[in-house]
């Protein structure tokens, strides 16, 4: 413990962060999130790569992604497109196979996780830093952003949506008793091998996928750290939240309740 700073620093310099960005119709958002990520990583000095997994978006997201690759370089923006819309879970699996980092960030490409925003007023650090620092602090297997704790929160939600969100969260906490406060959040940092193992085990899609991955993490005794984040509703593009979403959430919750 005496020479603590030295190995820490050498480990820092060897660490590489892969950001997985699954996209479906994110033509407007993708350049912006990539810009923010590049800006952050350049400033912080961490080694990184951004892997874009586009499922043949009809709006031409892939075309924009190619332009971004030309601007930032093939080593920084990696394209792993697929021929059709095959869903989020398999998109992550597909992306991990190409990842060269030892840590993996997962986030939505729709700017709902504002990576540069300094969340805690006390330390004014961007979220990416906070997640990375949290991970190092406890050598956690995964660090999850949470909207439900501390300074975490949301923007652009009306009372109805807040009520649904809090109600669903309470129900989930009561039934599943997970060791994380935000199960459906999708801004997380994983050790690469941990994410590989977890994704192999998960079968569900969308919201439920994020939930299942946390539950499986507990089953496999992985350690979980949490960082409060603010969630800003998408500015561009269609939201996919509807009645359908709630039904699939309920189904997924019951399935996990009965099987895990």
């Amino acid at each position, binding site marked *: 413990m005496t020479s603590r700073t030295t190995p820490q620093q050498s480990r820092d310099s060897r660490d590489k962060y892969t950001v997985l960005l699954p996209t479906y119709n994110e033509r407007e958002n993708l*350049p912006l999130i990539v810009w923010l990520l590049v800006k952050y990583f350049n400033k912080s000095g961490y080694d990184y790569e951004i892997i874009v997994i586009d499922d043949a978006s009809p709006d031409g997201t892939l075309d924009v992604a190619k332009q971004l690759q030309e601007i930032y370089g093939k080593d920084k923006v990696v394209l792993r497109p697929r021929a059709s819309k095959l869903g989020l879970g398999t998109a992550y699996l597909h992306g991990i196979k190409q990842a060269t980092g030892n840590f993996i960030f997962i986030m939505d490409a729709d700017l709902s996780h*504002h990576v540069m925003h300094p969340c805690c007023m006390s330390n004014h650090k961007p979220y990416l830093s906070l997640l990375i620092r949290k991970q190092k602090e406890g050598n956690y297997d995964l660090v999850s952003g949470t909207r439900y704790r501390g300074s975490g929160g*949301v*923007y652009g939600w009306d009372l109805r949506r807040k009520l649904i969100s809090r109600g669903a969260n*309470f129900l989930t906490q009561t039934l599943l008793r997970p060791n994380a406060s935000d199960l459906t959040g999708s801004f997380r940092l994983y050790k690469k091998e941990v994410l590989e193992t977890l994704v192999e085990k998960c079968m569900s899609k969308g919201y439920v996928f994020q939930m299942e991955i946390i539950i499986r993490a507990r089953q496999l005794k992985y350690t979980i750290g949490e960082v409060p984040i*603010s969630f800003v509703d998408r500015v561009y593009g269609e939201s996919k939240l509807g009645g359908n979403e709630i039904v699939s959430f309920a189904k997924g919750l019951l399935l996990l309740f009965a099987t895990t």
Partner: protein
Amino acid sequence: EKTVGGLMYGKRLSSLLQVVFPGELAAEGVIMTKLMQWLFGVSLLAVVWALTAYDLLDLNLPQTYRDVAWPMPAYLLVSFGCYSLAVIGYRVATFNDCEEASRELRMHIKEAREDLRKKGLRF
């Protein structure tokens, strides 16, 4: 066959033990699902309740015990409901509105668009 505390016991007894002691179950590597845990807890409470409310063991419990025990399930349900509503209501009321995050995001979006245009991106 296995030995626990010097006792030999067969497969059937072992699985019976696992039902009575879910802790053992985890130790055996068998996972008890959350549904099973709930059913286990609820049936345990139900048994205790039935034993007291109807004095099934003929313990000659004082009548007051039985009177208190009988409406207990309803009380428990109602208090749990109130507790849930209070917690959810409080959490909705104290859900942070991240005004500042959104303002900052819009600022960064503008900056990003200008810079990307300069770098030759066709939106």
